[in-house]
């Protein structure tokens, strides 16, 4: 019993390290799982183990998947000649949730950072240049954060891809859907004004 107590304490400690959780919420979560060992805890443990053993970075785009090359990269319908460049897998998932983009992705694995000395060599930039050169890419869409680091990275990539023949575009910046002008920061309002368009 003492052994089980130590194991549970160790589990609580592990869970408390997850984002959004502290020791108190970890205790509640573990207790919840312990009360539903059969229906929830074991399937969860098995799923965690399966994913932990099987997940890998896609060799082409850097997405996380269960195979050497992810489903998006192997789907022939997505060979549209467009690559959407994102900083992180979370951004790729966000774009996929939107369901609008039907091309392929390239995950950089971060952004150039002035402070943290993250340089081009830390990102998957050579792989992007190689894909643009070899895969008949006609448009590279830079879907990077509207932050100083994000836009610095965007400019760097645009410069690096000059001369490849691919059109380099970036996401628009401006008023979010459902946004009220009164609550927007002045940078967003400036960007929105600059990107204004005629109403047909």
């Amino acid at each position: 019993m003492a052994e089980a107590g130590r194991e549970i304490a160790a589990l609580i400690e592990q869970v408390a390290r997850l984002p959004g959780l502290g020791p108190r919420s970890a205790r509640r979560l573990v207790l919840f799982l312990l009360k539903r060992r059969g229906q929830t805890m074991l399937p969860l443990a098995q799923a965690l183990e399966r994913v932990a053993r099987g997940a890998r970075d896609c060799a082409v785009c850097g997405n996380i998947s269960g195979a050497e090359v992810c489903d998006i990269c192997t789907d022939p319908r997505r060979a549209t000649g467009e690559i959407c460049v994102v900083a992180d897998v979370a951004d790729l998932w966000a774009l996929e949730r939107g369901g609008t983009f039907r091309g392929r992705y390239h995950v950089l694995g971060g952004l150039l950072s002035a402070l943290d000395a993250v340089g081009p060599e830390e990102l998957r930039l050579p792989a992007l240049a190689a894909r643009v050169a070899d895969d008949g890419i006609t448009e590279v869409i830079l879907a990077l954060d509207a932050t100083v680091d994000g836009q610095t990275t965007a400019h760097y990539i645009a410069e690096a891809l000059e001369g490849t023949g691919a059109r380099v575009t970036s996401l628009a910046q401006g008023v979010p859907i459902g946004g009220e002008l009164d609550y927007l920061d002045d940078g967003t309002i400036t960007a929105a004004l600059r990107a204004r368009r005629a109403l047909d």
Partner: protein
Amino acid sequence: MEWRAQALLIAVRPHGETAAIAEVFTEAHGRHAGVVRGGAGRRMAPLLQPGAELDVTWRARLEGQIGTFAVEPVRGRAGAVMGDRAALAGLSAVCALLAHVLPDRAPHPRLWAASRTLLDALEGVPDWPAAYLRWELGLLDEMGYGLDLSRCAVTGTRSGLAFVSPRTGRAVSAAGAGDWADRLLPLPPCLLGLAEARGEQLLTGLALTGYFLERHFAPEGAAPLPPARDRLVAALARRVRASSPPPAGSVPGA
């Protein structure tokens, strides 16, 4: 402990899940860090972009603690320069260099005013690269490593100054340099007020200030200068190359 000041945001890092540690530069308190609660959240993060001007109130129980900042945005600058590669690189370089070289909590009011003016200039003053070069000279001066470009270190003359000694940071005239000229750093006339800081002169000036910034703030074995400065120099060099007329006799497009 509590104070309130107008501040330039020079760096921000996430702290935990929703907070951020902001480094600001103020007139009276110099470079100062503090925790911003909710600084990494959806509402605050867009306001906490480097270069932003903030009204900050710092509170701590003891002077030596990191303390917390209550932040009111005064004006953002990043949004206005994001579309301009060189200006964005300029904003990053100013903030990153300040974060790199400034000692903690030591006031530098002249540098604060100059930094604020320069950040304003990035938003549309066409000649801002010249202002940036002057700012770097001022940064060296303010940190105690100013270049002495007033007279030749060898002959004492005030005319014909063409080089700077990499060891002392003092100007040397062409006549005074003699056989040592190839060991000295070129001094562009723009740094003497004899020409405008444009084109190759601007780049030579940045190479000169870069040499001394690296020597004093990134010696061997220490952290290198922020890469943001290299990116700015590369962006300006690219701009100079693009605006230079092709050499005489060259065929356009060849």
